[in-house]
C-alpha cells in the first residue's frame, strides 16, 4: 500500500527536478523546487502513516517551515533581480562566469 504513495512521491520529485533543470523562468524553477519539497513531505507522511508514528509528520512540519522561509528569501532575490534586469530568465544571470 505504501508503495503507491512512494511512487507518487518519486514521480513528483522527478518532475520537480526536471522542471528546475529545464525551465528558464525563475519563478517556474522556484515552483519546481517547491514541488520537490512537497514530494519529500509526502514521502515523510507516508512513512509516518506506515509505521503508525508521529516522527514523519513532525519532520514534515520542519520541512514546511523551511520551505516558507526559503520562499521569502528566494522571491525577494528574484524580485530584486527583475527590478534591475527587467527579465526573469535564469540564463541571463550569468555574471559569475567572468
Amino acid at each position, binding site marked *: 500500500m505504501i508503495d503507491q504513495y512512494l511512487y507518487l512521491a518519486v514521480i513528483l520529485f522527478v518532475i520537480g*527536478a526536471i522542471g*528546475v*533543470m*529545464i525551465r*528558464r523562468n525563475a519563478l517556474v*524553477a522556484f515552483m519546481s523546487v517547491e514541488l520537490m519539497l512537497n514530494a519529500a513531505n509526502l514521502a515523510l507522511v507516508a512513512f509516518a502513516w506506515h509505521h503508525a508514528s508521529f516522527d514523519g509528520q513532525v519532520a514534515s512540519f520542519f520541512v514546511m517551515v523551511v520551505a516558507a522561509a526559503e520562499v521569502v528569501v528566494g522571491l525577494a532575490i528574484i524580485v530584486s533581480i527583475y527590478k534591475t534586469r527587467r527579465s526573469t530568465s*535564469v*540564463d541571463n*544571470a*550569468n*555574471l*559569475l*562566469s*567572468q
Partner: protein
Amino acid sequence: MIQLEIVDPVAATGLFGYAWLMIALPALGALVLLLFGRWVEKVGPYLAVATITGSFVIAVALFLQLLAAPPESRAVAAHLYTWFSTGSWQLDVGLLVDQLSILFALLITGVGGLIHVYSLGYMAHDARKRRFFGYLNLFVAAMLTLVLADNYLVLFVGWEGVGLASYLLIGFWQHKPSAAAAAKKAFVMNRVGDLGMVLAISAMLAQFGSSAFIDVNHGAATLTGPWVTAIGLLLLLGACGKSAQVPLQAWLLDAMEGPTPVSALIHAATMVTAGVYLVVRSHAIFDLSADARLAVVIVGTVTLLAGAWIGTSKDDIKKVLAGSTMSQIGYMMLAAGIGPAGYAFAIFHLLTHGAFKANMFLGAGSVMHGMNDDVDMRRYGGLAKYLPITFWTFAMGYLAIIGFPLTSGYFSKDHIIEAAFHESALVGTLALLGAGVTAFYMTRLMLMTFGGGKRWADGVHPHESPATMTVPLIVLAALSLVAGAAMNGWIQDWLEPAAGNHPHEVELLPTPIGWLTMLVVAAGVLVGWLVFGRKQIPAVAPQGNPLAVAGRNDLFGDAINDTLVVQPVLGLSRAAVATDAKALDGFVGVITTALGGLSVGGRKVQNGYVRSYALTMVLGVLVVGAVLILGLAA
C-alpha cells in the same frame, strides 16, 4: 720473476730539511708578483730572478751533499705534512731528493735562471712583464714540485701546475686570438694525457692503497693480471700529453705563439721532459711489463721521425725548433722504453738537450729581437756578420744537436742509437735515419738564417742583442759543448740506484755504430748544404713535393684530431642538444598540454549558468543516492 733493485730512501737531515725552500722561493715570488704586483712593479722582474737564483743555490748545495754521501744513502725523503687522512687512507706530502730528482732540479733552476736573466732583456719593453715573471716563477715552483715529489699525487699537483703555467704563458699576449687559441689547445690536449695519469694513480691507490713511490716500487712485483701493463700504458698516455708525443703532439707547434723565453723554458728544457721523468721514475712498473715498454719504444720512434719530418718543411724558425724538440724527446722516450739499458741515456740526453735546445731557442729569440720579431726564415739570411755572438752560440747548439764529435749531443745521442741497435735492428735504423734528417733540417735552418744572401724586409736593421740576453747564450753554448764530456763517464753509475739501469762500458773511441752515425750525420749535412747552400733561397716557399707539403701541414695532425675527436664530440653534443629540445622538452610539453586540456575541460563546469549548476547538483545527488542504496544493500 724479475728481481727489481729497489733503494729505500733515508730520512732527511741537516740541509735536506730545507729542500722545501727550493719550491717555496719561486712560489712566494709568484705570489708576490701576481697578487701584490702593483707595489713591486719596478723591482718585480729582479725579484723573480732572485728567487730562482736562491733555488739554484740550494739545489747545488744539496747536489754537493749527495755527491759526498755514500751511494746507498743518496735517496733522501723529507716528509712535509699529512695532506689528508680519512678512514684507511693517509696521503702525505713529502719530497724525495735523490740522484734523479736533483739532476732535474739543477736543470730547472739552472737553465731556468739563465732564461729569467734573458727575459730581463727580451721582455724589457713589455707593459705586462711583471706578470710574465710571476708566471715564470709559478712554472718553476710547479715543475720543482713535480720532480721533487715522493708520491704520484703530489707529482700530479705539479703536473697540473705546469699545465696551468704553460696555458698562462702561451697565451701571454692575450690580445692575439691565435695565442689564446693555442693556449686553449695546449691545455685541452694536456687534459687528455691527464686522464691517463688520473686513471693510473687511481689504479695505484686501488692496488697498493698508496701512490708513494716506495709503495709502488715495492708492490709492483705483486701485481697480477693485466694491471702492470695497464698502469704502464696509462702513465705513457699521461707522458704523451705532457711531452707532445704522437698522438698528442699537435699542441707543441701552436705553443710557439708564446714569447720565446717561454718556448725555451717550457717547451724545450723542462715541461716537455716531464713525461720522460715520469717513465724513468716509474721504472719499476715498466721493468715488469714488456708490452708497456714496447708501446713506449713505438711512441718514441714514431715521434722522433714525425718531429724530424715536420722540422724539414717549416719556414718559421721557432716551429723548426719545436719539431726538433718533439723529435729529440722521441729519442729520450725510445731510450726510456728500452728498459734498464736505456734509462740513464734518456736522462743524459734530456740534460744535454735542455742545454742546447734552450740555447738555440734563446738564440732564435735574439735573432727575432734583431729582425723586428719576424719569425719567417725566408726573410733572414746573411745574419752571421750582424749578430756574431748569436751566430757563434747558435752554432755551438747546432753542432751539439747534430752530434758533432765531442759536443754534448754526440755523447748522449750516440748512446741512444747504440742501445736502439741492441734492442732491434729496425728501431736502430729508424733512430739513425732520424739523426740524418736532424742534421739535414738543422743545416737548412743555419743556412737560411745565418748564411747566404740577405733577404730582409724593408726597414729591418739587424743588431746584436744586449748583454742580458747574450750572456745566458754564452753560458748555454759552453754547456752545449762540455756537458756531454763531463757527464759521460759518470752519469750511468750515478743514476743506477734511482733509475735501475745497468751501466755499460763506455769507451773513448767510437764503436762501429758510432762511426756509422757520424757518417749518416755528415751525409745529412751534405745534403742540406747541396739543397740550400748553393743557390739563393726563394723568397716564397716553392710548391714542394708531397712529403714537404705534409710536413708543412704538421703531418695533418690537426685534421686527424678534428676527424677523430672533435667532429664526433660535436656530433654527440648536437645530438644531446636535439634530444634535450625534442625528447625531454617534448615529453614535458606533452604533460603540460594534457594538464592544460584538462583545465580547459574543467573550466566548462563553471560557466555561470544556473541551470547547469542545477544539473550538476542533481547528478551529485544521484551519485550519493546510489552509493547509499547500494551500500545499504551490500
